[in-house]
């Protein structure tokens, strides 16, 4: 029986082909949005009322944002390392397992960049909006 990637002597281990790392950045972004939205909704509806201040909520969302950004940066770093697999002349657009590996790493890095900016944009709303109005 032929083993996968047997023809490719640069092939990384099969487990490295996982797509899961690609989804981590956008998932953190989505979770950050969901948690921030629900927390703000509960804060305004149940804690301070519709005319209340967002001051207390700011620190909660601030900590949440720092955790989310740290997670995205870490995932991006893993993506960058994956993209750096091989030597300087390595491609990431050929039909080989090594190229697929590097391509997925590069995609992870780009998606983490997008998720970083989007998460920061979401957090900006509580910086500039002071009340539940």
């Amino acid at each position, binding site marked *: 029986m032929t083993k996968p990637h047997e023809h490719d002597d640069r092939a990384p281990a099969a487990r490295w082909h996982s797509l899961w790392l690609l989804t981590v950045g956008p998932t953190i972004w989505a979770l950050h949005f969901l948690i921030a939205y629900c927390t703000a909704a509960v804060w305004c509806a149940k804690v301070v009322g519709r005319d209340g201040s967002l001051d207390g909520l700011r620190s909660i969302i601030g900590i949440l944002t720092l955790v989310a950004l740290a997670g995205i940066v870490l995932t991006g770093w893993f993506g960058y390392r994956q993209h750096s697999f091989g030597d300087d002349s390595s491609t990431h657009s050929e039909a080989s397992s090594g190229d697929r590996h590097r391509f997925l790493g590069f995609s992870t890095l780009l998606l983490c*960049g997008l998720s970083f*900016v989007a998460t*920061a*944009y979401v957090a*900006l*709303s509580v*910086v*500039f*909006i*002071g*009340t539940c*109005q």
Partner: protein
Amino acid sequence: MTRLLQLRAMWRSSRPAILLFPLLSGCNGPQSALQPAGIEAERVAALFWWMTGGGILIWLVVMGLFIYATHIRRHKEHSVRRTRWLILGGGIIFPTVVLAALLVYGLILMAQLRDFSGTTLKIAVSGEQWWWRVRYAREDGSMVELANEIRLPVGERVAFELSSPDVIHAFWIPSLGGKVDMIPGRTTQMILEPTKPGTYLGACAEYCGSAHALMKFDVVVMEKAAFAEWLERQAAPAKPPQDATAQQGLQAFLANGCGACHSVRGTEARGQVGPDLTHAGSRLSLGAGTLPTNAETFSRWIGHTDQLKPDVRMPAFGMLPADQLAAMARYLSELE
């Protein structure tokens, strides 16, 4: 001949722009957010222009770099390092920074638009399928109810309390400010400060059923003294019928059960289901912006209500004798 060919070429190249020109007339008039007549509308219009400018700037930079890379330096070798910086700088960093600046501007503006301090007048508006119930709170604590028309004093900050008993509507006077949803079970708020006297148009900005497009209202911004006088007149009961025909019209109005749904203050008609008609004849439109107000349009409205506004809750009274219909229309058109 050459001249003719040149003109033809000019026409061909500029045709799209010339054909789009008439569309710009849609940016004008009493229902245009691009012709602000209030502080809030000025802020919204400024946001629109900054957003448009930011979008154009990003497009120009990205397309400029694209043309530079593919046409201007097409036959020259591109340095990898320089190319990376062009892509990173022009394609990622520049748009991100411009969008962040626009976002911050929009968020600061949003906070300003939600500042409810310093209001001098409070108006409760209820969006109902498919008309507007308007209640003015007076200084003595009494309320004045009217329908489908809002008048505002120029230069005053006015607080609106918005609600709905049936489905979600949205209250929008483009010339004066942004739109706010009217949600069943909740009261939402907005502030408007008109700066230019004039007549404007408002509309429901959330699809709310088959006659959604016929749910409009007139907005008149008046000088303060004229507004105070107008509100005083609106608070007064309806004037009695002026002649025999109008008297017959009032009797027909009461005899046919119109008072079960409509109020005409000063008469036995005290219904709360439909619009208050105490001063219906003085309003600028009938049927929430559907028709002008005169005896003829009142007659059409009463006789063919469902044709003029599909699915309206008011039944048509076209079965009434013509003289009764005419008398009722005359009476209502004279309620000034």
